[in-house]
């Protein structure tokens, strides 16, 4: 095949967002590159909502998507669509009396979840506070750019923040395209093919947990994680929103693995499990330790529990 077109004349992958932009301008057809006979572009337009697809339709979509990714990233991806396990509601615990602010979790998350390295996307922000400071009400006062030789720094403590997986998620309510919703196991997910990038959800999130792809995501080829889930770490597009999904691609297997941030934490501050299982570590800590949730007064009811083991 002689394919030496410059990047300009190459057909742009069409996202629902481009498409809507086109429609708004009253020239929907302009959004379709002239002379494209690639059926997959048309198929991606008319893709049904994830929750409404039949098994066969889903398999079709996955096959098409795996092909698109293989072409784009020169790596073969596996995209799972595993559904929620029965009798499972995921909860997370973070021990503030142990966290030392080392940021291992931040980068294990980036690696597991195929976040863009440039423009940089991190799902986890680790905040540093001075001890005795009035803090829970005042996240903006914290420093997330701290960079001493060694942590923990005397007189400081650390609080990592990521998606709190609210039972009552304000981000879901404001989404105009139903591109984000709460799954039966409590994980708030995003369909990157339905997201139009309006960022209402980012404005609605009280925890600043959602991230926007301002540019085409860039990841070194050898660092791509090819084991993905449709609702999780499959590669994203420019112009879509993403966030922590409790590593849906890991935790939904049966038996399921712990999220990447739990596995890497050198001090063991991160806990994960099934809130419906009375024998789980998450239930143990809720019942035996001092716990709190962020901005409880907003009635978002997070399933992310900060606690103090001591």
């Amino acid at each position, binding site marked *: 095949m002689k394919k030496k077109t410059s990047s300009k004349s190459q057909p742009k992958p069409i996202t629902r967002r481009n498409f809507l932009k086109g429609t708004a301008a009253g020239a929907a057809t302009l959004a379709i590159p002239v002379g494209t006979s690639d059926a997959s572009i048309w198929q991606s337009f008319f893709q049904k909502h994830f929750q409404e697809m039949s098994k066969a339709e889903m398999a079709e979509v996955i096959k098409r998507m795996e092909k698109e990714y293989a072409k784009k990233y020169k790596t073969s991806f596996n995209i799972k669509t595993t559904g929620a396990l029965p009798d499972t509601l995921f909860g997370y615990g973070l021990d503030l009396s142990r966290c030392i602010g080392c940021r*291992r979790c931040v980068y294990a998350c980036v690696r597991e979840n195929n976040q863009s390295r440039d423009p940089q996307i991190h799902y986890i922000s680790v905040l540093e506070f001075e001890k005795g400071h009035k803090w829970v009400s005042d996240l903006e006062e914290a420093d997330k750019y701290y960079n001493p030789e060694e942590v923990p720094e005397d007189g400081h403590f650390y609080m990592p923040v990521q998606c709190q997986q609210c039972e009552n998620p304000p981000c879901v309510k404001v989404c105009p395209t139903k591109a984000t919703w709460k799954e039966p196991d409590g994980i708030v997910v995003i369909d990157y093919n339905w997201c139009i990038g309006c960022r209402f959800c980012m404005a609605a999130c009280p925890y600043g947990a959602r991230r926007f792809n301002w540019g085409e995501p860039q990841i070194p080829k050898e660092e791509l994680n090819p084991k993905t889930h449709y609702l999780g770490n499959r590669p994203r597009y420019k112009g879509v929103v993403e966030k922590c999904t409790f590593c849906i691609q890991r935790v939904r297997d049966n*038996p399921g693995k712990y999220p990447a941030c739990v596995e890497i934490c050198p001090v*063991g501050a991160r806990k994960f499990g099934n809130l419906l299982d009375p024998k789980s570590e998450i239930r143990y800590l809720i019942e035996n330790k001092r716990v709190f949730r962020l901005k409880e007064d907003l009635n978002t009811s997070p399933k992310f529990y900060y606690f103090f083991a001591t």
Partner: protein
Amino acid sequence: MSSHTKFITLVAVALAVSFLTLSTQALSSESHKAEKPKTSEIPKNYDTPKYFVPPPPFSEGIFPCSDCHEDMDVNPERRELEDEHVEISEMFNHASDQRWCLDCHNPDDRDVLRLANGDLVSFEESYNLCGQCHGTIFRDWKAGIHGKRTGEWNGRKQYRLCVHCHNPHSPKFKAIKPLPPPNNPLEIKYKKLSDEEIPRNPLGNIQ
């Protein structure tokens, strides 16, 4: 997973682990003249089950201790060690006013640890030693709250020994270097990069 299959998995894991220990010991004891009781035959009064853990983090070549200690006299005197274990003796800072090496290490067979009540404990189960003085922490550890477990949240879990995180001779958790802070949004200027130019993850590739 039903609790029944979970139990079976646990038993299988425990069996596999003890089999491994047994077989390595069988191998190493062939090169030794003296017959020693195998770890699994050590009589014990404590009732903690054996937890699935990675091997103890020994320095290379130090174990079995009996390689040296078998033919050595025990010196119970508290002192600065000079001929061997000099670093340990220098760093020793663990309620050290009241304690000495032989409060934890068994004088008669250096390859095992010894509890206050005289029970012997293998290095694979050193949590039982720590647990006698740190009971609350030990309870949290068993529940997966203190320290950490990895593996499957609804299946097989691997614990870490206390000594994977705490040096038993100087147990305060050591400070470490943090990974880089995030970019300040004010500094972001997007440009298309070649694969080599894209910043690498400080943790390296996924295995």
